[in-house]
Each structure stands twice: as C-alpha cells, then as structure tokens.
C-alpha cells in the first residue's frame, strides 16, 4: 500500500503525500530526537526532512525503499540542524554525581545522565550510527546504505563512537570514584 502512495505522491498527488507524511512523522521525529536530544531541533529536522521528501520524491526510483530514504533525509536534516549551532557540544554542563548520596533505585538515573552527557559529546555522524544501530536495530550494511557511506566506514564510525561514549562516561565517573575513595 505504501508503494502505491509513494507512486501517487511522485506524480504530485498531494493527498497521497499527506498520507505518507502522517504515517511517517512519528518515527521520523523519534529518530531525529534521539540524534539531536532536543525536542525543538528534532521538530525542525523532521519538518525539513518531510518537506525535502516531497520536493525530491520524483527522484526516488525504488518505491519500496521509501522508509530508508526518508531516514536518510532525517539524518541529513539532523546534521544540518546540529551544525546550525556549532556551540552545541559546549552547552553540556558537567554536574558531578555523588553516587554516595543516591539510593539504589536512582542508580539507573545516574547511568542515564552519564549516557546523556557522553552522547552529547559525540559528533552528529557518530550519534547517527549509534541511533541507527542501537535504536532502530539496523545492521551495518543497512546503516551504510542509509547514510550513503561504505560499510567499512559505518563499522569504524560505530566502533569509535561506542568507544568514545564509553570513555566519556568513564571520565565522568572518575571524579566521583576518587571522591568515594577519599571519603
């Protein structure tokens, strides 16, 4: 059914595109939000991606690839949105987490906070591969196809992004550990 809508939208059928946009907006937003970690920027990126999809839809040859193609547009819109404010990584505020004062039930909250901080330090390209792999569950070949990069590049990007994220989290945790040791 979706291929039929895509075909009609490619011919300029506005109702068909409206149906496609309605069906795609939530997952596009969810993807954009996870890359950008900002609801307003995610909203802007989603809108840009969907408008770009309408504009460029006649160039899409394989209608069954609409979803993957739209994901590509969303990721690109996220890159643009992220680079609109190059200071975005500098907005990360380092709030020390005192693990000695949090209860067991709040440990996961602390973990999430560390993940959030570490993730915000990654480049948009690194964020995209992490989200495509760990959120959408894409294998490397699908990530490569979606982003228009070689599989090897996708693999190394995912590897270094994961390593950098791990390192950032460990670096965040270090002062807390040393404080715990001295206490």
């Amino acid at each position, binding site marked *: 059914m979706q291929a039929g809508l895509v075909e009609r939208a490619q011919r300029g059928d506005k109702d068909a595109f409206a149906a496609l946009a309605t069906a795609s907006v939530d997952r596009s937003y969810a993807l954009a939000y996870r890359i950008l970690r900002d609801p307003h920027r995610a*909203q802007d990126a989603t809108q840009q991606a969907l408008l770009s999809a309408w504009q460029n839809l006649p160039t899409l*040859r394989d209608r069954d690839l609409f979803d993957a193609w739209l994901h590509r547009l969303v990721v690109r819109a996220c890159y643009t949105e992220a680079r609109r404010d190059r200071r975005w990584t500098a907005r990360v505020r380092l709030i020390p987490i005192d693990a000695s004062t949090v209860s067991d039930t709040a440990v996961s909250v602390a973990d999430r906070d560390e993940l959030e901080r570490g993730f915000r330090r990654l480049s948009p390209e690194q964020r995209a591969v992490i989200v495509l792999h760990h959120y959408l569950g894409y294998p490397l070949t699908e990530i490569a196809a979606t982003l228009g990069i070689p599989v090897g590049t996708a693999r190394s990007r995912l590897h270094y992004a994961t390593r950098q994220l791990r390192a950032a989290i460990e670096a965040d945790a270090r002062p807390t550990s040393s404080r715990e040791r001295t206490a």
Partner: protein
Amino acid sequence: MNTRPKFEQQLSDWLEDGPVDAPDLTLETVLAAFPAIPQRRAALRVPWRTAAGNGYFRRLIEIAAVVAIAAGALFVLPRLLPGNVGGPPSAIPTTPSPALTAGSSTPSPSHSTSPSGAVISQECLGSDLAVQVMDWQGAAGTRFGTIKVQNRSATSCLVSGTPGIQLADGQGHLFLDSANLGGPASVSPAKPVFTLRAGGGNSIYLMAGLTNYCGAVPVSPVRIALVLPTSLGRVVATAPAGVAITMAPCNGPSAPTTLHVQMPWSTTAP
C-alpha cells in the same frame, strides 16, 4: 540468553526512552507548507542507491558524459574557427537567439546576466535592497516568518550565501543577533547565486526562525534586519499592517535561544 554486553544493552535501553510521537504541530506545519513547494522533476532518474557498486555506476556515467562533450567539441569547434570556409554550411545561426540576449522574464538561480546580456558581477549591498516580512507564524516553541527581498537600485545585482538576522525592539535597540545564536551571516552556500533585477523586477525569499526566547519582553514593534555576508551591509525589513513579530515562547532558560535562516533563499515564497 541475552549475550549482549551490558554497556550496549544499557545504551539501547536508554535510547528506547524518550518521545515516540511527534508534537501535532510538526505534521500540521508540514501539511500546511508542502503544497506550495514545487517538486523536482528528474529528467534522468538515477537510483539513490544501487545494489552493486554505486561508485562504479556513477563513474561510468561521468566517463560517458566527458566523451560526449569531447566529441561534441571536436565536431563543432572546427566549424566555428575563422577561415574555415570550405566546410559545409553551419546550422548555427549567425545572429544570437533573442532568448539568449533578452533575458528571461522569470528569475532563475545562478542566472548571472542582465536583460541586456551584460554579465552582472556586482553583489547587492544592504542599501540596494528592500526587505519585507510577509508573515510571522508560530509553531510549537518556534516562530518563523517569510522574508521577501527585492532590489530597489537602478542596476541588477547578485545575492548568495546566508544572511545573518537581527531583532531590534521598537526603540531601535538590538536585542537578538544571529551572529551570537548559531546563525551568523555566511558566504555559504556560495551557490546558487540569485540575480535581483533593478527596480524590484523580481523577488527572492527566505524563511527566518526563532526558538526559545527567555529574555525580557521587547518594546513593540519588533523589527527584523538582515545582515549580508562579507560586510555588504544591513537592511531593516518593513512589515505590512497586521504582521507582528512576536517572540517564541521560553521552553527553558538553560536551553539555547536560536535565531537563524530556517529555509535558504528561494525564488518562490515558502
């Protein structure tokens, strides 16, 4: 049995958290905007990805294009060289086509000749331009507006790049400047270059966006100004009656305010 490393599992769980539904205004904005945007029609449709060797396929097309151009040049050039009178009569007319000298009545990106055929190399200055805010709308946490630009000078001039945006209050005090908010004037993108014909002969448009304003309420009426890249000047926009520039709602003082070009120059109103 779950064999995923703990860190990756944590990462996946963390990513699972978060919104899965877009705010209603996201879709409403798209549905309102897209009918006015023309679709790009591809003469030759190349798949956005091919199963086997996208790079190889593209290289083949590039080689074929180079060969075709070279063959065409070899065929045409000898006929154009002076003194080559022994060849067959040329099908190329000896007088230029009117379409090439009279110019197009519709504006065209990267069009860089004047109606008289002279090459335009002069960039538009702020003082050349008339700028008008056509509308100023609200979406969730965002304000955006369409800005129309015309050339009011006596000579055609060129516009490219991305302008900066400033907001000044009713007393003329500048209180927001995109140069400090993530959207400074930039020479990028260098292309397309838009020709603005003299005397307001045509218009170009862009969309400006503002998010998360947490400052003091500015004195009305708020004015918007465009700052052209490479010190070409600044021009304050007029606004017709009924169009008021309102501030985007504050979504959190710790989050950044942005003022930026949301959609770049276009020959059609977004």
